[in-house]
């Protein structure tokens, strides 16, 4: 009997490992920044380059930092979701326009609508590196103390918005 049970157990263990492995997303790199203060920066605003914006201005508020770009394909998919979210007025969304051209970015916001309170232009992608951005779009949930509480890699969908981001925002706002 043992002759059959042992190989069967080994097979089941292997199968479980491989099955779980198949369902993992190798593109999802867990961010070490979650639980750490959002890296500081001062960047010119996209619409008014004379005015700077810095995350320090947001102390005391829960906010979303959404990394986007006019050249980013998945951002198109995400855009209506962000538009809807900004209409509901639950949490302010700030945009980090990553490695983009000013004119392209403005055209994109004109066409699809502008869900952001404001966007800042990270033309050279340096702030992106500070935030560990490796694939646009990415969205950070930042709490009242300026600590990153969550990072969404890839587009925000209605599903991860209702399941993860909004409950977290509500919880952080209540604190």
């Amino acid at each position, binding site marked *: 009997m043992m002759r059959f049970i042992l190989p069967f157990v080994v097979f089941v263990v292997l199968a479980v490992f491989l099955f779980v492995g198949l369902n993992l997303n190798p593109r999802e790199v*867990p961010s070490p920044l979650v639980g750490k203060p959002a890296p500081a920066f001062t960047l010119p605003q996209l619409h008014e380059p004379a005015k700077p914006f810095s995350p320090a201005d947001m102390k005391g508020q829960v906010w979303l930092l959404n990394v986007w770009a006019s050249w980013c394909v998945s951002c198109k998919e995400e855009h209506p979701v962000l538009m809807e979210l900004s209409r509901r007025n639950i949490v302010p969304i700030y945009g980090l326009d990553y490695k983009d051209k000013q004119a392209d970015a403005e055209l994109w916001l004109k066409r699809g609508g502008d869900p952001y309170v404001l966007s800042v232009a990270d033309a050279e992608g340096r702030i992106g590196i500070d935030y560990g*951005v490796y694939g646009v779009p990415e969205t950070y949930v930042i709490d009242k103390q300026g600590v990153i509480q969550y990072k969404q890699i890839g587009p925000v969908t209605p599903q991860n918005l209702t399941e993860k981001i909004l409950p977290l925002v509500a919880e952080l706002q209540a604190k």
Partner: protein
Amino acid sequence: MRYLLILMLSLLPVFAYAGEAKDMAEDPVLEQRMIGLAEKLRCLVCQNESLASSHAELAEDLRREVREQMQKGMTDQEIIDYLVSRYGDFVLYDPPVKTSTLVLWYGPFALLLIGGGVLVYQLRKRRSQIAEPQISAEDARRAAELLDQTDKPEELIKKDPQA
């Protein structure tokens, strides 16, 4: 003529050699150091390429970042720490040994030990199963008799009716 052609064709792959992605740098020593470090780092966009060989835009930006930090006089370890604090251990091709990577580092050795253990166990078991061959007194006597025969091979053949 034909051989020349074959020779030329066989040399063709030499030209297909792909070098490291190049960036302009004034300082070749620093560039060399940067490439050396970037080879140990993983590109996050094209995950099976090193930062040195990747042409992805992010990789170019990260190489620029590494180069600038080297110019500022940071050590390799400081630069690695900087990148790990932003992108996690994922950027390292050599993941550090810690509790979450124990299986990764020592799993193969554990499997080897288990395999070796099973092999030794099975061999021992098999040996104990094979009984010492028993031979009767009569067979022993006949064997001794045959061994004592000094017949020449030819005679043996002649005696054999089948031959």
